[in-house]
Every structure is written in structure tokens, then in C-alpha cells.
């Protein structure tokens, strides 16, 4: 009790941890590998292409980061995206007679996408919180339901967006602002906002606290159910945003739209260093994770030694390595 406080408690030091550097290192290695394999790889065009293509899954993965950080899980995001895309197309097509084929229809369609996604996410959240059902079970159930609904809506075939509307809508995916593709801009803005929300707002702090210990959160006067519900609703809304970018890319939706996106999103979150059991999340890590996954596919396509069909095997291996790194982090401190 005699020494001064400053003697006892050192100020925080900057430490370089493998878990922080891991995803960045992996990204760097992939970039080098890609450059060695193909001269066209490191061109601005190719890299922008890769990032733009990863935007939809990336935006969903950002939502998944919140859900997982708070100790939840959402397996339904892929079929939710397909379902949302299907409904958006139906709504826009149905509005053509009244609103014409201009921007108006597209704006209404996009808003509908946001609402449908947010609503679907909130439904998941309500089942988890008010219904007191395990998130794994709830979202496994809704995964099946949304997938069945898109198949039903498309009558087993494909829903196509009105050609003229698709033409108007297309710049949202393929357009550029100041030379940067629109999806990249949307992705970046959402990522930055999400990082701030997770790290610097009450909601973000509470989400991490709940993931760390629900009881402690409850005893700290946190409205656990409301925060949980909000993470699922946010996830849904971001699925909506991702779908807004997806629909102009293909102009159609069917039963195989966005299949296995949930796994890609969860994989990206884990590769990025977010703890699967909750309590700690990292948005920038998720962004890096998504880009890593997309790069693997890109590199496999640029070379001829290894079959691109092995893409998923590489992704799987990376996930396992990422979790191993997380564990060594825990053992280290």
C-alpha cells in the first residue's frame, strides 16, 4: 500500500501479437503469391475487381461480426439474401406499370430490400430472445424457410428483373465514383461505420459484454434481450444492403442464389480474429478475412498448376489455421 500507483501499474504497452498480425500476414502472403503467379494480378483493376466482388458477402460478414461478438449465430443469411433478392425483383417488376422503369422503381426496390432484410433479421432475433430458442436452431430453421420461400416464389425457376429496370439499376454494381467502383465505396463506408459502432458506442460495448458473459451483462443493468435483438436486426438490414448490390449484378434470383454465403461470412469473421464464442469482435479483421477468401479463388483462377475446384479446400484450411492462431493467442496471455 506504500508504493505509488504508477509504480505498480504500468501504462499499456504496444504489443505485436500474432493474432493481430495473422490475418494481415496471410493477406500479404496471398498478394505476393498472386503477383508471382501472374503479372496481371497486382494491377489496380484486378484488385478492385476482387474487392468489389467480395462486397456483398463482406457486408453480410460485418453483420455477422456483431451477432457472433454478442455470442449469437445466424446461419440464415444466405437464404435470407436470396429471399430478399427474390422479393425485391417481384416488387420492382410489379411496380413497373405504375412507376415506370426509372429510378423511382429502383429506389423503392432498394428500400424494400432494406426493410425485408431488417424484418427477417428481427424475426430471427425475436425467436432467439422472446422465444428463448438457441440461435443455432432458430437460424437453421429460418435458413430452410427462406430457401424454400425463394424456390416457391420463383416457382422452381428463376426470377428475372425487368430488363429496362435492370439497365437503370446496373450502375449501382458496375458504376464508378471518382474511379472507384460503387460496391467498394458502399463496403468501405459500412465497414468504417461498423468499426466505430462496435468499438465506440454503447451498443457495441454492450454486445461484446453480452458475448463475454450474459449474466454479468444482466447484473450490469444491460437490456440483454434488446441488444441481442438489435444485433440480429442489424444483421438482417445488412443482408438487405448486400442484396441491393447483388440484384443489379445478376438481375435475377433463384433457388441457388447466395448458397453457402453463411459459411463464407462466418469463415471471414473467424479468420479476422473475432471469437466464435463471443466477447470480442473486430470489423477490420472481418474485412481482411473476406478479401482473403476472395483472393484465394482469384489466385486459383490465375494459375494452372492447381485446380480451381480446390478453392473451398483452401478456404477451409485457412479457417482451421485461423482458429489455431486464436488458440495460441489465448495460451500466450
Amino acid at each position, binding site marked *: *500500500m506504500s508504493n505509488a500507483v504508477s509504480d*505498480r501499474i504500468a501504462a*499499456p504497452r504496444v504489443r505485436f501479437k500474432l493474432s493481430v498480425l495473422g490475418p494481415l500476414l496471410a493477406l500479404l502472403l496471398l498478394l505476393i503469391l498472386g503477383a508471382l503467379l501472374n503479372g496481371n494480378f497486382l494491377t489496380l483493376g484486378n484488385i478492385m475487381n476482387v474487392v468489389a466482388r467480395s462486397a456483398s458477402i463482406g457486408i453480410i460478414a460485418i453483420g455477422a461480426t456483431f451477432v457472433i461478438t454478442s455470442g449469437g449465430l445466424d446461419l440464415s443469411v444466405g437464404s435470407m439474401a436470396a429471399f430478399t433478392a427474390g422479393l425485391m425483383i417481384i416488387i420492382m417488376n410489379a411496380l413497373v406499370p405504375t412507376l415506370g422503369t426509372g429510378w423511382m422503381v429502383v429506389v423503392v426496390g432498394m428500400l424494400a430490400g432494406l426493410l425485408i432484410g431488417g424484418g427477417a433479421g428481427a424475426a430471427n432475433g425475436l425467436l432467439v430472445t422472446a422465444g428463448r430458442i438457441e440461435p443455432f436452431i432458430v437460424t437453421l430453421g429460418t435458413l430452410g424457410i427462406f430457401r424454400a420461400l425463394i424456390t416457391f416464389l420463383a416457382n422452381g425457376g428463376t426470377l428475372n428483373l425487368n430488363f429496362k429496370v435492370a439497365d437503370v439499376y446496373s450502375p449501382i454494381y458496375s458504376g464508378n465514383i471518382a474511379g472507384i467502383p460503387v460496391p467498394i465505396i458502399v463496403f468501405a463506408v459500412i465497414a468504417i461505420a461498423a468499426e466505430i459502432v462496435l468499438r465506440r458506442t454503447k451498443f457495441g460495448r454492450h454486445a461484446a459484454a453480452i458475448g*463475454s458473459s450474459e449474466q454479468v451483462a444482466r*447484473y450490469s443493468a444491460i437490456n440483454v434481450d434488446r441488444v441481442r435483438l438489435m444485433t440480429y436486426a442489424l444483421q438482417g438490414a445488412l443482408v438487405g444492403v448486400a442484396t441491393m448490390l447483388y440484384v443489379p449484378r445478376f438481375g435475377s434470383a433463384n433457388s441457388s442464389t447466395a448458397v453457402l454465403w453463411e459459411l463464407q461470412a462466418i469463415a471471414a469473421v473467424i479468420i479476422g480474429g473475432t471469437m466464435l464464442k463471443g466477447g470480442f469482435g473486430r470489423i477490420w479483421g472481418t474485412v481482411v478475412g473476406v478479401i482473403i477468401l476472395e483472393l484465394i479463388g482469384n489466385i486459383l483462377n490465375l494459375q494452372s498448376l492447381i485446380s480451381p475446384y480446390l478453392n473451398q479446400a483452401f478456404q477451409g484450411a485457412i479457417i482451421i489455421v485461423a482458429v489455431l492462431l486464436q488458440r495460441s493467442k489465448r495460451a500466450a496471455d
Partner: protein
Amino acid sequence: MEENSASLAGVAVSKSFGPVQVLYGIDLTLRSGEVHALIGENGAGKSTLMKVLCGYQGPTSGHLLLDGQRVVFHDSADAEHKGVVLIHQEFNLAEQLSVEANIFLGREMQAGALLDRRGMHDRSLQLLRELETEIDPRQLVADLSVPEKQMVEIAKALVRDARVLVMDEPTAVLTAKESEVLFKQIERLRQQGVAILYTSHKLDEVKSIANVVTVLRDGRHVITAPVSDMSVDQMATHMVGRDVSDLFPQKSVLAGSEIVLEVEHLSVPGRVFDASFALRRGEILGFAGLVGSGRTELMEGLVGLRHADGSIKINGAPIRIRSLRDASRHRLAYLTEDRKGHGLLLNMRMRPNLTLLGLDRFVHGLIDEKAEEKALEKAISDFDIRAGDRTVRVGNLSGGNQQKLLLAKTMLVEPDIVIIDEPTRGIDIGTKQQIYSFIDRLARSGKSVIVISSEMAEVIGLSHRVMVMKAGRIVGELEGRDIGEESIVRYAMGLAGSAAA
């Protein structure tokens, strides 16, 4: 010397976590048939030394001797295999397994290729009855109370035929009566020739059951001496490095009788029945009773953590409290007895833990991390929190420092009424004194405090008034001079209830 041959010894044991050194060249010898007490302030390094001795952590330098031979434990299982068993300060039980499965975890009895479930059941039952508990071996550990879990931990160690048994604060969560049972077992083991190392912040207990005492201070060895050569006060002085004989502050004189909180007919279904009491401004109101008498449940019901019926008035105005958020709005705060399970986020740092309850004070649009950091700085100095490094995860803080952090967290919201459940569980005597004087200052500044404690001396030494609970009911109220161990016990055991009515 023969019969007193060394069982386990640490020689010049040092331990660092990264750049933070926790132990400095400690020599410690445990002898067969001897109870050795290890005492020291919170964060002195007791648990760390115990973990090193039992193979949970390797020493950074120095080594261990088992029966005079140099030994290296590869892990705790290796140490257990060699007869060195540690009972942790934090429980190490598989919550979703039964009591008997836990007792035999890792050394299941086999009947051929299958588990000998009957044999394990019978042995568990026998052990638990020897420990004088009513626990059913088939119960899930998750359903046990905290002292019951401690008993299971002890049964688990007994089944491992320990030659060296190390216990980290086994009595911190036990009542006096339960501790007695444990001491009987310790004495029995000692007579069988087991070497026992144990730590406790209850020094009179150390005085009565230990043969030898070793004192650590700031990771350094201070003294090892036969317990007969040291009084409790001397122990405390060695631990803290100053005199701590005046443990309790002088009780303040209550100025007025203005009632700030009035609880009437509060019931928590199945737990608390028709409890009524009032709390005055500047008053310290003690709640005594046996573990399980419903004190915690009553308070949790009051602050909205459990469903409760009844009427509550604050400053004369009737209010409804349906959740802890409602309680906070009325400046009523509750500090849980279960700091690990309900109080602190163990895998996070101190800063988010400190501000979790009062986060609103730090939000101006975004969370103001600089202000948080300042608050942490202040809490560290106000509550004398000792951590190697400010970024340490709270789970790695010593128990006492966790308690201080929890206190700081609750006080950050500047409540008018504070309910503190077991304020000094697992806390060293120097810090106890600090916490008592903190509670006293709080009351003197016009706040009102409710203290629940299983430590009789604490309730008696602090409270202006004491309510005694038994089986979910308030059975007695004592004030001023009437507050005493005997009068409390009479109510708590149900001896005085009918006579007084």
C-alpha cells in the same frame, strides 16, 4: 528429522508473466503431517506460487523438490499423478456433469471396459457424508450452491489420494460451520501424513489450524515461523507492512431518522416471504443469517434481478422496480456476491469492466475512451487496485483486486443506496480495513448502505442496525448495543424468534 522429511519444496522459485514479475526467489518447504499456511495480501502471489508448486504453471526460474529429489511437473495431471493436488481458488468443476462424475473426472473407476458407476457412486456418497454434506452425488454441479461446490472440490481432492494437498482459500465461500467440517478433514489428513498447504485471509482460522505460517508480500518471502510464535496481529503486520489492529472504523452517529428506503411485504416466490424493513439516511444496515437464508434473493428481488411482489418506497414515494435499470434510475445499486459469475467480464480488461454499469456517463455520441481511461486511473488509486499491467485481463487479477474493481464499478454510478453482498469475500486484512473505512465514509457522506455478510464480525463491526434472516424470512432486528454474536446466532438458528414475538 526422519518423520518430518520434506514432501514438497520450492527452491528459489521466481515467476514472471511477460515483463511482470510476480514471485521473487521463494523458498518454501512442505512437510508430511504438517499444515502450512501461506498468507499475504491480495496479489502477493499466493495463488501463483500454489500453481507453480502443483504443475499448473512452470517457474520462470528455480525448481521443485519432491521427497528431496528434483522434480519437474509437465502439467497438473503429472503432478496429481505424483500425489500433488491443488484445489483452486476458482472452481474447476464441469458444471453440466453430475457430482460423482466430477469427483472421479480423469480417474474414473472401471469395471472391465465400462465405467464402474455403482462403485463411483458409492465412494462419492461415502466421501460426501464424511464431509457432512447432504449433496446427492447424482445432482448436476450447476445446481449446487457455492459452498456445496467447494465441498465437491474437496471430495475430488480426497479421491485423488493426495500426499501433498494444496488449497487456495478453501474457506472463503464457506460458513463457520462448514469450515469446521473442512478443518476436521484437514486434521484427519494431516494425521495420515499428508502435507498440507493452505491459504486464507481469515487469520484467526490460520492461527487455529496451521502448524507453520509463511508470509508473502509483493511476491517476496517475508517470514516462515511456527504458528505458535506468531499472533494474529503479528501475521497481519507482516502481511501488510503496517499495523492493522483497528479493523473497523468508529461507527458514525446517525443524525436524523429520515427514511430513504422502505420495503414492505416483499416476497420472492419460493425464496423470500413477506420481508419488510426500512433504511435510514446515512445508515449501515447489516443483513445476517446462514447461507441460504434468502438474503441475496431478497436483495435481488428488491433491485429487479428477480421477480418479486411487495411495495417499495424511496424517499417516501412508492416506486416500481422491474429491472436493474429501474433500480439504477432510482439511484439504487447492488453489488453481487458472485464477482466471477455475475460481477466482472473476466476476458476483458479493466476499463470496459469499470464503466459497464455507468457507461452512459461516458457516452457523448460515442464512448469517450479518454474519460474512461481517466476514470480507471482514479479507480486504481481510490480503491488501491493492484495489477501488473493496466491491460491485464480481469480474470488474471488476484481475487481481492477483482473485488476492488467490482466495488469501483458499482460506485461509479454514485448511488444513494448501495447494497453490498459479501463485501470482503477473499480479501486480505489490510484491504478489508480499507473497504470498511470506505463503507463508513459512504454512510457519513449521507448515503445509505446495506451490507450482507456471512462474516459475523463484519456485520457486528459495521452496522448501525442488523436484520437477521432465516429460511426466507426476517426473524429479528437488533440495534446499537444489542448487536452481538450471540443475539444474532439465536435469531439465525430460530432460538429467539418465538420468544421475541
